[in-house]
């Protein structure tokens, strides 16, 4: 141990999780890339050619940030929730809980690994998309910023689900019933300005709108909502997740009777 931080433990958990991803490269990398490519083929190449430009951006290029967000959100939640749920399910969590590691170190290791995986997938999808449609990234720094921030935030959210879940069904239910619908209705495939006023206002209650909008702004400089608001909303959700995780470890919720 070095000083007051058990960096070796963080490295051990992080590497363990990354090794798991490499072992299952088929399902953890290839399948999200394949399904996103299918979206490009259908929406970008086939339908997109018959669509008008949105905010001066060809439709095929317009949907790229939203599609990356869709994968980023589902992958972050899936990776992080499985990463902590599986040791609970298999009983191997005892070792992590009995080790000289702080709660913060546990979260950094598991969430860091999950976020790393989804960022890598996001970048692979970005590279894949560039094969289908010409892309421009006006604010690369902010693009990476939103990518990392979203991956970390939703990996934290996934971690919470993984601690909460009492079975594999519950593990699937949140991504399936909440994340996917919110992403589809969050302006991945359209600008919310295209909606009637009532639905547009309703959409503003969907947190994913802010993520997609901010992320798209970093590509094309155009956004549905102000980019500062996007950033603030993402940080707010990050904060909510951090508070929830702090509560989990303070009370021992589902980890420590």
């Amino acid at each position, binding site marked *: *141990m070095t000083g*007051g931080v*058990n960096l*070796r*433990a963080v*490295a*051990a*958990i992080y590497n*363990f999780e990354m*090794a*798991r991803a490499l*072992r299952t490269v088929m399902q953890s990398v290839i399948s999200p890339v394949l399904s996103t490519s299918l979206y490009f083929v259908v929406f970008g190449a086939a339908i997109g050619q018959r669509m008008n430009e949105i905010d001066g951006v060809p439709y095929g290029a317009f949907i790229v940030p939203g599609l990356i967000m869709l994968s980023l959100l589902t992958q972050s939640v899936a990776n992080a929730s499985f990463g902590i749920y599986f040791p609970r399910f*298999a*009983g*191997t969590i*005892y*070792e*992590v*809980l*009995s*080790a*000289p*590691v*702080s709660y913060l170190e546990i979260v950094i290791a598991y969430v860091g690994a999950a976020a790393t995986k989804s960022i890598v997938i996001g970048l692979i999808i970005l590279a894949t998309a560039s094969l289908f449609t010409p892309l421009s990234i006006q604010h690369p720094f902010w693009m990476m910023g939103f990518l990392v921030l979203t991956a970390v935030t939703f990996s934290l959210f996934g971690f919470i689900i993984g601690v909460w879940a009492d079975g594999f069904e519950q593990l699937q239910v949140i991504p399936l019933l909440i994340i996917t619908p919110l992403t589809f209705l969050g302006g991945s495939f359209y600008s919310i300005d295209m909606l009637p006023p009532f639905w547009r206002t309703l959409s503003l209650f969907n947190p994913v709108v802010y993520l997609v909008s901010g992320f798209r702004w970093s590509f094309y400089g155009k956004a549905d909502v102000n980019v500062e608001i996007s950033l603030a909303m993402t940080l707010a959700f990050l904060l909510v997740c951090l508070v929830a995780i702090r509560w989990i470890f303070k009370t*021992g919720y589902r980890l*420590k*009777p």
Partner: protein
Amino acid sequence: MSPILEISGLSKTYASGFQALKHVDLAIETGEIFALLGPNGAGKTTLISIVCGLVNRTDGTVMVAGADIERDYRAARSLIGLVPQELSTDRFESVWDTVAFSRGLFGKPKNPAYLEKLLRDLSLWEKRDERIMALSGGMKRRVLIAKALAHEPRLLFLDEPTAGVDVELRRDMWRLIRELRETGVTVILTTHYIEEAEEMADRIGVITGGELILVEEKAALMAKLGRKELILQLCEPLSEIPAALGRHKLELRAGGSELVYVYDATRESADVASLVTELSAAGVQFRDLRTTQSSLEDIFVGLVNGGGRS
């Protein structure tokens, strides 16, 4: 020597209201092998789980080598190794990877030479590249022991180490525990196999219903509570015990062909000697004799059923 583990006033009430531990006090000396004996549900695993940080205590304090398990958890936990009761192992990882992971998790720098020796000692070296899921139950148990020892702990907890384990592994485990003790490691094992406690332990604690009802040196416990029987096989059967021998606690068995003398193991020799002298004086002759001593199991069953403190 100062105690490596000091537990005082430890209580645990689960959210369900079940009181698993009731004000337990226990001090474990450095280098001893301590067996915690008790029926299922007595509180053995809860006690271990609190010390290892898996369960929150309700009340009381636990110090490991002077470090409080909550305030100073890093110092406390880095000294502890735990072999859990359940066979909770990784599945897809190799033996080597899982053991190296454990060492890193406890903050120790890499030491392949130590891990190699550890795996060899546990007959796991040949299996080091195999996935854990492909191993037998006994081999998985060895993997759990290797994981617990990977960070060179000073205090090792073995929760029911030999439950459902074959004879060979049990012998290996006992040998390993003795070797560990020689290097100064303190071992606390829980078991409901009396044989194990009798074979291994320096001291024995009996826990039942969440209360530690007795802690005693094994030898002292056996002597204190042990009942000895001297069985004399008589040349001629007796119909009744001769009046001259009335002051001894004697009984006749096997149709009068065996004379049985029951006595306290602590104050043995003098009485046995005088009995034999008095027997020959009374003209009773015997052709053979044997003694039996009550096992720890008899003592244990007596304690737990009696339920009382001694």
